[in-house]
């Protein structure tokens, strides 16, 4: 009985004896995460109800970089809105903004991966993860599972080689 318990504990420990299945309850912020999520869902709903469009950030940006006639002004307004929302929150809660824990060259590589990947994969966390899943899109489900899985792998590998974030 006792050895079974010890074995079970060992399963969740790495070589240094750190419990790898531990959760960081001090950092857990369920209410602000849910409230922020509800704001994002409401925002996406406004664009859907009024403009009939998907609030996918990478898609909105892509349409600004490769402009088509009649497709620019609403995207620009959306991008300006993002900045306005950001400035409002910067005034209210500056501690909610953080820098990447990774070195700048790696952040540049990360940005390049995000840019190429969202362009090829037609979307990011907002377009696929929020809007697509809400429509029960099979494509968006496949994309979301994929970027969650590789995000997990990349974050794990970065910790392994570079240390905790």
């Amino acid at each position, binding site marked *: 009985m006792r050895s079974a318990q010890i074995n079970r504990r060992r399963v969740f420990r790495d070589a240094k004896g750190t419990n*790898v299945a531990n959760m960081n309850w001090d950092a857990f912020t369920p209410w602000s995460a849910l*409230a922020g999520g509800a704001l994002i*869902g409401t925002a996406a709903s406004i664009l859907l109800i009024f403009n*009939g469009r998907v609030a996918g*950030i990478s898609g909105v940006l892509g349409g600004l970089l490769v402009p088509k006639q009649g497709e620019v002004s609403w995207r620009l307004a959306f991008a300006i809105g993002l900045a306005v929302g950001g*400035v409002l929150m910067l005034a209210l809660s500056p501690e909610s903004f953080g820098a990447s824990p990774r070195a700048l060259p790696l952040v540049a590589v990360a940005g390049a991966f995000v840019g190429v*990947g969202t362009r090829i*994969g037609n979307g990011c966390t907002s377009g696929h993860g929020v809007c697509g899943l809400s429509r029960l899109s099979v494509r968006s489900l496949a994309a979301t599972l994929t970027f969650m899985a590789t*995000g997990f792998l990349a974050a794990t590998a970065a910790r392994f080689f570079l240390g905790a974030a």
Partner: protein
Amino acid sequence: MNSIRKNDLAALATGTLFGAGLVVSGMTLPSKVIGFLDVLGGQWDPSLGLVMGGAIAVHAVVYRLIQGRPSPLLAERWSLPMREDIDSRLLFGAALFGIGWGLGGFCPGPGLVSLVAGASSSIVFVAAMLIAMLGTAKLETYLAGRSARNALSASNDESRPA
């Protein structure tokens, strides 16, 4: 005020709420994002899973409510993706995006919103992202044009008299 202007106002409102929501949710804290993705790091913070949960809870209900309506309120037609096929392009792109997300802790929205705080990492991230998006778009246009030209010259070859 014509309908185009109203469209832009709706987009402005969307962007503002979206940007505020990203900050409230914790998505503009790259360390928190990495702490969410690094499930086995010993310090897992599951909070950000609830961001997607909260957003979908609202948006899925609204989508159900508007389904079957002939058009959006300020546009002639719906502009929603209709494809349901899963191709390697989609999965490859999503895989690359996830790698970048897990490495830097930024996805596109929070990266953009974070620019207002002026941290050098968000500036570097967004600059690299935009250059990569533009480069990919240019390359796609070039490749599409080349294959179209090849198809054209192939059909010219066929029609050439022997």
